[in-house]
C-alpha cells in the first residue's frame, strides 16, 4: 500500500481528534480526543519513518507514547480534582473566569 | 577633564529631589527649605553656565561626551548653545519662585496615613522635573534628549494629578476626578506624541547610524549621509508631532487647559513656562537642525497651524470662565507666536521666538502665580466669583495687572520685544501671515483686560471683602519677576547677545537667508 495513504489516515485521525476537542463537553472525552491526535501524529511519524527508511520516526513514536502517558497522569489528576469539586466533568461548566 | 558643569546643573536638582523625598514625614518645613536651597544652588550653577558661555565661541560649549549605550549608537553628549543657555537660565530661575509660590500648596489637609508625605513628594517632583528639563536642554544626543523628554512626563503627571487647588467649586470629589482626568489627558497626549517620536528616533538611527547632533549635521554637510526626501519628511513629522503636542500647537492643544486648570498655579507655571518650552526648543534644535529640507517643506502648513493657534487660543481665552484655563488658552496663543517665529526662518523670527520662550516663561509665571495667590484666597477659579479685588488688595491687583499687561505684550515689558521680533520676522517673509498674527495682539488685550475688569474692578463682592493683600512670601515671588519683565523689556541685549549666534547657526542649518529690505536706507 502506498505509504501516503497512512498519512491521509493520520491526517484524518488528527482532524477527528481536533473536531472532538472542539465539539465535546466532557473533559475526559476531550482529553481522549487529544490522545487521538497524538496517536495520529504517531501514525504519521511511523509512516514517514518507513518512507525514509530510518528509525527516527518510530523512536519518536515511543517517546510520544511516554509523553502521552505522563499527560494522562497529570491530566487525569487535574480533571478528577475538578470533578470532585464540581461534580461535573463538563469543561463548559468550568467557566468562572471570563471577559 | 574639566568640571562637568552641565551634568552638575542637572544632577544637583535630581539629587535634591531624592533628598527631599527622603525627608521624614514630620519634617515638612525642612523639606521645603531643602528644595528651595537646592533650586537656588541650581540657579547658581545655571548662572555659572551663563557666565562661562562665550557667545563668540563654538556652537556647542561646555561639552561633555561619554559613551553610554553603544549598541544604540547613543552617547551621553551634552553641550549648550545660546538658546539652550537662555532656557536653562530661565528654568533655573523660575523653579525657586515656583517652589516659593507653592510653599503651602502641598501641606496635608488632615493627618492621613503616617507614611503619606505629600509635601516632600511635591517638592521632590518639582526638582525632578527641573533636572529632566535642564538635561533635555543640554542634550546634544537625540536619544538622550528623547529619554528625558519622555521621562519628565512622569513627575509632571504626578504633580498635576496629585496636587490640586485646595477648594473647588464642585467639591473635593469632583476636583479629584477632574484632576486625574487632566493628568491622564496630559500624559496620554504627550506619551502618544513621544511614542510617535520614538518611531522617528528609531528611523533616524536606521538612516544615520547614530544620534549625535553634531555628527549627523556634519555627515549631512559633507554628503556622507544622504537622506531621501520622503524619509526626511516622515522623520520630521514624527519629531514635530511630539513637539507640537508638547508646545502645544492647535489642534493638539486640548490637554493644556485641563492640565493648567486643574493643577495648582505653581505647577501650571511649571507646565507652561518650563516644560512646554522643551517642545518649542526642540523644534528649533532638532526639527530645523536635523531635517532642514523637510522643515522648509512643512513650513506652510505649520505656519497655518500656528496662526490658528494664535487666533483660536486668544478667542477661546476670551470665552473662558475659569481664570487658569484662560491663562492656558492665552499660552496656546503665545505658543503659536513662538512656533511662527521659529518657522518663519528669519533671524528676527527665530531670535524673537527664543526670546519669546524666555519672556513668556516669566510673564506667565507672574500672571499665573498671582492668579494662584488670588485663587487660594477665595477658593474658586471662576472669574465670576471675583470682583473689586483692586479695592481690598491693591498690590495683588497691581501685580496681576502687570502680569496681564506683559501677557498682552505691552511695549516696555519684555514680551513685547519678542512678540514684535516674531511679527517682524514673520512679516518679512510672509506678509499676510504677519498681518493675521497681528490680530492676536488685539485679542490678547481683550482677554487680559476682560479678566482684569471682571476680577479686580467694580463693586467689591462680599466674598472678597476680607481678602488680605499679598504677603511677604508672595511679594518675594512676584516682585523679582516683575522687575525682570521690565528689565528685559527695556534692555534685552544680554539675552539677545547670547541667542544671536545660535540663531545664526540655525539659519545656516536650514540654509535660509533673511529677506533683504527693498531699499538700502541710509544709516
Amino acid at each position, binding site marked *: 500500500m502506498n505509504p501516503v495513504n497512512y498519512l491521509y489516515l493520520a491526517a484524518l485521525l488528527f482532524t477527528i481528534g481536533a473536531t472532538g476537542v472542539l465539539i465535546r463537553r466532557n473533559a475526559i472525552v476531550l482529553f481522549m480526543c487529544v490522545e487521538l491526535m497524538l496517536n495520529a*501524529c504517531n501514525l*504519521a511519524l511511523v509512516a514517514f519513518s518507513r518512507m525514509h527508511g*530510518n528509525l527516527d*520516526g518510530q523512536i519518536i513514536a515511543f517517546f510520544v507514547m511516554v509523553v502521552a502517558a505522563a499527560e494522562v497522569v497529570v491530566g487525569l*489528576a487535574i480533571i478528577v480534582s475538578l470533578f470532585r469539586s464540581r461534580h461535573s466533568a463538563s469543561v463548559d461548566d468550568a467557566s468562572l473566569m471570563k471577559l | 577633564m574639566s568640571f562637568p558643569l552641565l551634568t552638575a546643573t542637572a544632577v544637583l536638582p535630581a539629587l535634591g529631589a531624592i533628598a527631599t523625598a527622603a525627608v521624614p514625614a514630620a519634617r515638612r518645613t525642612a523639606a521645603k527649605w531643602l528644595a528651595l536651597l537646592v533650586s537656588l544652588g541650581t540657579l547658581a550653577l545655571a548662572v555659572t553656565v551663563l557666565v562661562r558661555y562665550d557667545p563668540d565661541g563654538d556652537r556647542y560649549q561646555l561639552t561633555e561626551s561619554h559613551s553610554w549605550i*553603544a549598541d544604540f549608537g547613543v552617547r551621553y553628549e551634552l553641550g549648550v548653545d545660546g538658546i539652550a543657555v537662555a532656557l536653562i537660565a530661565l528654568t533655573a530661575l523660575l523653579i525657586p519662585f515656583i517652589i516659593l509660590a507653592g510653599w503651602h500648596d502641598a501641606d496635608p489637609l488632615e493627618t492621613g496615613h503616617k507614611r503619606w508625605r505629600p509635601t516632600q513628594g511635591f517638592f521632590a517632583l518639582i526638582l525632578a522635573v527641573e533636572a529632566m528639563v535642564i538635561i533635555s536642554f543640554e542634550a546634544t544626543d537625540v536619544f538622550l534628549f528623547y529619554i528625558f523628554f519622555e521621562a519628565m512626563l512622569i513627575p509632571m503627571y504626578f504633580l498635576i494629578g496629585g496636587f490640586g487647588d485646595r477648594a473647588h467649586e464642585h467639591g473635593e470629589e469632583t476636583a479629584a476626578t477632574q484632576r486625574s482626568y487632566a493628568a*491622564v489627558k496630559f500624559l*496620554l497626549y504627550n*506619551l502618544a506624541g513621544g*511614542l510617535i517620536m520614538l518611531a522617528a528616533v528609531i528611523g533616524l538611527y536606521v538612516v544615520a547610524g547614530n544620534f549625535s547632533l553634531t555628527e549627523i549635521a556634519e555627515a549631512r554637510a559633507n554628503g556622507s549621509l544622504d537622506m531621501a526626501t520622503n524619509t526626511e519628511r516622515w522623520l520630521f513629522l514624527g519629531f514635530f508631532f511630539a513637539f507640537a503636542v508638547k508646545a502645544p500647537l492647535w489642534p493638539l492643544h486640548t490637554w493644556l487647559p485641563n492640565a493648567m486648570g486643574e493643577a495648582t498655579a505653581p505647577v501650571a507655571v511649571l507646565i507652561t513656562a518650563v516644560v512646554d518650552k522643551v517642545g518649542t526648543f526642540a523644534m528649533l534644535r532638532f526639527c530645523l537642525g536635523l531635517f532642514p529640507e523637510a522643515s522648509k517643506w512643512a513650513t506652510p502648513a505649520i505656519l497655518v497651524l500656528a496662526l490658528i493657534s494664535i487666533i483660536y487660543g486668544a478667542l477661546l481665552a476670551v470665552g473662558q470662565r475659569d481664570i487658569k484655563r484662560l491663562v492656558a488658552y492665552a499660552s496656546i496663543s503665545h505658543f503659536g507666536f513662538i512656533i511662527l517665529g521659529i518657522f518663519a526662518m528669519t533671524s528676527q523670527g527665530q531670535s524673537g521666538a527664543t526670546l519669546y520662550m524666555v519672556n513668556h516663561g516669566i510673564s506667565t509665571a507672574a500672571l499665573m502665580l498671582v492668579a494662584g495667590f488670588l485663587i487660594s484666597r477665595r477658593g474658586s477659579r471662576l472669574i465670576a466669583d471675583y470682583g473689586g479685588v483692586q479695592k481690598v488688595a491693591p498690590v495683588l491687583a497691581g501685580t496681576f495687572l502687570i502680569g496681564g499687561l506683559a501677557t498682552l505684550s505691552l511695549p516696555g515689558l519684555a514680551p513685547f520685544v519678542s512678540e514684535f521680533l516674531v511679527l517682524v520676522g514673520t512679516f518679512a517673509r510672509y506678509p499676510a501671515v504677519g498681518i493675521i498674527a497681528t490680530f492676536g495682539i488685539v485679542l490678547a488685550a481683550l482677554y487680559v483686560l476682560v479678566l482684569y475688569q471682571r476680577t479686580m474692578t467694580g463693586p467689591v463682592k462680599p466674598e472678597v471683602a476680607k481678602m488680605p493683600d499679598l504677603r511677604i512670601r508672595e511679594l518675594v515671588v512676584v516682585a523679582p519677576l516683575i522687575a525682570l519683565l521690565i528689565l528685559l523689556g527695556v534692555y534685552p541685549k544680554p539675552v539677545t547677545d547670547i541667542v544671536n549666534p545660535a540663531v545664526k547657526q540655525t539659519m545656516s542649518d536650514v540654509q535660509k537667508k533673511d529677506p533683504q529690505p527693498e531699499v538700502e536706507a541710509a544709516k
Partner: protein
Amino acid sequence: MSASAVHSLWTMAADPIEKIDAPKIEYGQLSPTLIVIGAAILGILIEAFVPRRSRYYAQVFLSAVALAAAFAAVVGLAAGGYATTKAGIAAMGAIAVDGPALFLQGTILLAGLLGVFTFAERRLDPVAHGNRVDSFAAQAASVPGSDSEKAAVKAGFTTTEVFPLLLFAIGGMLIFPAANDLLTLFIALEVLSLPLYLLCALARRKRLVSQEAAVKYFLLGAFASAFTLFGIALLYGYAGSVSYATIAQVVDGTVQNVTPALADTMGNDALLLVGTAMLVMGLLFKVGAVPFHMWTPDVYQGAPTPVTGFMAAATKVAAFGALLRVLYVVLPGLRWDWRPVMWAVAIVTMLAGAIVAITQTDIKRLLAYSSIAHAGFILAGVIAASPEGVSSVLFYLGAYSFVTIGAFAVVTLVRDAGGEATHLSKWAGLGRRSPLVAAVFAVFLLAFAGIPLTSGFAGKFAVFKAAAEGGAGAIVVIGVISSAIAAFFYIRVIVLMFFSEPRPEGPTVAVPSPLTTTAIAVGVAVTVVLGVAPQYFLDLASQAGVFVR
C-alpha cells in the same frame, strides 16, 4: 564534532549491530540542566523521606542552591567561551550550547530563583492554626471546602511538592531553547508544561478558579502540543530527520547524499509549509500570541500568583528562545514564507493585547493581556531576522522577565479577607496607604509601558530598532501605536493607586518576608539598571546573539 558528521543516535540503530557506541554526553556543557533536574529528583526523594516539618526548609534550600549552582554553571560556561567561540552541539546533536541558549538559561534560572523566593513566601497569609502558610493548597487532593481540606489546613499541611515541580519545569525550560532537534524540543515542551499544569491547580484560596485554570491550561496545552507534534511529524517527513541542522540543509537544498525517498519528500513543499505552520503555532501558543493567546488571561488569573509570575516570565523566555532557534536555525531558508505571517501575528498580537487590556478589571488579567501585547513587541524583534533581532529579543526577554516577576510579587502583597485583592477597584488609593509599594508597582507599570529610564524602554527600543533595520518600519509604527494604547491602561492603574481616594474597606498591604522583598527589590533594581545603563547587558545579548548550527 560537527553537526552533520554526527548522525543522530537513532539512525545508527538501523545498521547491523556490531557494537554499541556509548553515547557521548558532554556533562560539563549540560551541567545547568543536569543540576536542576537532579535537584528536582532529589526533591521528590525529599518528599518521600524527609519529615513533613522539615520538608519546606529542605525543599527551599535545595531549590535555591540548585538554581544558584546551575546559574553559576551557566556563568562558568559563558565565561569559558561556550557562548561564543566554543559554542557547539552537545549530547549527540540533541542540545545546542551557544550564546542564545546560555543567555536564556541564565535568565530562566534567575527568574526561577526569584520564583522560588515567591513560592516560599509564608508571611502573607494570616497564620492558620499556628502554622505559617504559603500560597499553595494545604492538600491538593482534598475537595475545596471539604472536611478533609479543613483537617489538612488544621494539620498545617503544605504542598511542598511545588518546589520539585518548579525545578522540573525549569529543567524543561532550560532544554527548550537549547533543543537542537525536534524530538528534544517536544520533550522539553512537555517537561516544562506538565509541572506547570499542576502548579496552576494548587492555589490555597480560590481553589475552584485555580483548578479551572489548570484544566483549561492543560487541555489547551495538550491540544497545542498535538499540533506541534503533527508539525514535527510533517517536518520529519519532509526532511527525513529531526535534526535542526539537517532540516535546515534540506530546506536550503544543500543537503548531501539525497536518498530517493528524501528527494521525493523534499519536493513536497506542502509538507514543509504545513509542518512549519503547525510547529510554529505550538510555539506561539506558549508565548501567548494572538490568536493562540486565549488561555493566558484565564490561566494567569486562576493560577496562584507566584506561579503566574514565574510562568509569565520564564515560560515566555523559554518559548521565545525555542521559537527563535526554530526560525533562525531550522527555517532561515524559509524566511520569505514565515516573515509575512509573523508580521501579521505580531501586529494582531500587539494591537489585540493592548486594546483588550483597556477594559480589564482584574489586575492579574490586566497583566495577562499586557503580556500578550509584550509578546507582540518581542515578535517584532523576532521578525527582524538578523543578529540584532536575536540580541534585541534576548535583551527584551531578560528585561521583561524581571519586571513581570516583580509585578506579580507586588500583586501578592495586596490582600483582603479573601486573599489577594486582585480586583482593580480595590487598588484605589493604594498610593496613600502604602506609598512605597504603590511606587514600586508604578515603576513596574512604567517599565511595562516603556517609559524611558526603565528597562522596558530599552527593550522596546532594541526590538523596534532591530525591526526597523530589518525593514519592518510598519511594525514599528504599529508598535508605537499599541504602546500608546497600552500606556493608557498602565496609567489607569497608576491613577487608581495615586489619585483615587482609598476605600474604607480596602485591602491591606501585607508585610512580606525577606524572600518576596528580595524578589521585588531585584525586580526594581534590574528594571532601573537596565533602563539607565543597559550597555553591559546589551553587549552581553549581542555577544550571545549567534546561534550555532
